[in-house]
């Protein structure tokens, strides 16, 4: 079955669910994806009228993590009387994970939210496609069979879908939003119960086998083009601090320049803050204007908390995340000891 047929199925199913929710007054507003202003993109949309439902779309360019629109930094969705609006949110697997994790961190209340679950089939790696066509202007992107077809003024190119999706999507095991007994009421559409998520992190093995110097050279090369625009932070559903550490100016912890040391520190501390919280949606990489792919760091974060604390973020609505808790028997092999 080609991806265009699959996308169409998902889209129809999603519109149907959204329409029902709005009609039955179960929600006041639907947050979903709409057509982007340029090809190879998509845009978020908030729908309150039934006529607008047809603006909702699903394709493999819906890279934004919509959970971002519910976190405290965004102005709250309230009616004129000041009551919280009930929200229906179109959720692929990682949006669902983000919602659950935000609920665990007590940032949102799942009682006011309906998760419209859809089975995601992977998000196109925009930067990889753009690079392949030499950043020529793209006029149309469509899917046919198992290919992505990119059309421009005087060219047309086909890319195999399985290769040109995000690295994170290639190893993704949570295609549709996770659910469990305590939150099943909030879920409509396709949600899955996940009990034990196994992952061997084979994709990291190659990088981790490198020497310290090779790793440093790779990371340096990867990050050196960063312009510190903070698009990654703005797109991240977990970056909701009122005052981010890079904006803090009393004390100024780290410089705001694009000197290598400042860039590395920004990404290092950002990763540190996301340990055990990152839901591996890949939104940060998708929105990066310089095409920096942060999937390696994301995967490492997942691996660390899985191996050390046996925790996967956004799967379980009851367990406390590792960086919010502690245990007397934690591993401490890294501590310096007498010989």
């Amino acid at each position: 079955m080609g991806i265009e047929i699959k996308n169409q199925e998902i889209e129809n199913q999603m519109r149907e669910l959204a329409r029902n929710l709005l009609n039955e007054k179960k929600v006041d507003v639907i947050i979903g994806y709409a057509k982007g202003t340029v090809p190879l993109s998509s845009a978020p949309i908030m729908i309150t009228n039934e006529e607008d439902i047809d603006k909702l779309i699903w394709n493999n360019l819906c890279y934004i993590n919509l959970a971002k629109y519910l976190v405290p930094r965004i102005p709250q969705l309230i009616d004129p009387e000041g009551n919280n609006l009930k929200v229906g949110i179109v959720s692929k697997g990682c949006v669902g994970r983000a919602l659950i994790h935000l609920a665990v961190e007590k940032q949102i209340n799942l009682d006011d939210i309906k998760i419209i679950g859809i089975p995601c089939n992977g998000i196109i790696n925009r930067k990889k496609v753009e690079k392949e066509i030499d950043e020529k202007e793209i006029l149309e992107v469509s899917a046919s069979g198992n290919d992505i077809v990119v059309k421009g003024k005087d060219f047309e190119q086909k890319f195999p879908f399985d290769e040109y999706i995000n690295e994170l999507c290639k190893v993704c095991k949570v295609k549709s939003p996770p659910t469990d007994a305590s939150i099943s009421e909030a879920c409509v559409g396709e949600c899955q119960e996940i009990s034990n998520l196994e992952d061997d992190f084979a994709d990291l093995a190659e990088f981790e086998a490198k020497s310290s110097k090779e790793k440093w050279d790779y990371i340096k090369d990867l990050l050196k083009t960063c312009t510190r625009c903070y698009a990654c932070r703005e797109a991240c559903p977990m970056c909701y601090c009122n005052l981010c550490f890079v904006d803090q100016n009393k004390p100024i912890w780290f410089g705001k320049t694009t000197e290598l040391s400042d860039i590395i520190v920004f990404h290092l501390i950002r990763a540190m803050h996301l340990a055990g919280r990152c839901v591996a949606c890949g939104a940060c990489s998708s929105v990066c204007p310089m095409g920096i792919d942060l999937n390696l760091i994301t995967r490492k974060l997942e691996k660390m908390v899985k191996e050390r604390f046996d925790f996967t973020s956004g799967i379980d609505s009851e367990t406390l995340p590792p960086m919010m808790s502690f245990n007397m028997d934690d591993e401490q092999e890294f501590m310096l000891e007498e010989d």
Partner: protein
Amino acid sequence: MTVKNEQEAEKSEEWEPKIIAFLCNWCSYAGADLAGVSRIQYPPNIRIVRVPCSGRVNPYFIVKSLTDGWDGVVVSGCHPGDCHYLTGNLVARRRFAILKELLEFFGIEPGRVNFMWASAAEGERFAVLIRKATKIVKELGPNKKFEKKW
């Protein structure tokens, strides 16, 4: 020392690392004190910063020390279970575990950042561990990787 002299010193055999040590007030700082009054020698490379608890040590402190040009960082606290604030060092331990692995992942030599436990009664242990940490950092050489230049 002028800049030139400093550069020459780095190349020579006599180069000595500068290490910043964050010691918790209740155990390790007292341990360092005990090492002092017991006249146990430990390398003069460390500069001690007293913090209320190892849980007070934010990863910012450690990373900023490295960008500010310190060759190594040592963080020392009470043994697990002995924390004056009951669980401060347990919280810190998780943080350190992640930070150390991440530094290694970024290609920064993990030996630059060392974590240890030393109680107020362990002057000898404190001296031994500081000797060990100094040796590790000395072998790594000057911290040039992501020192901030301006």
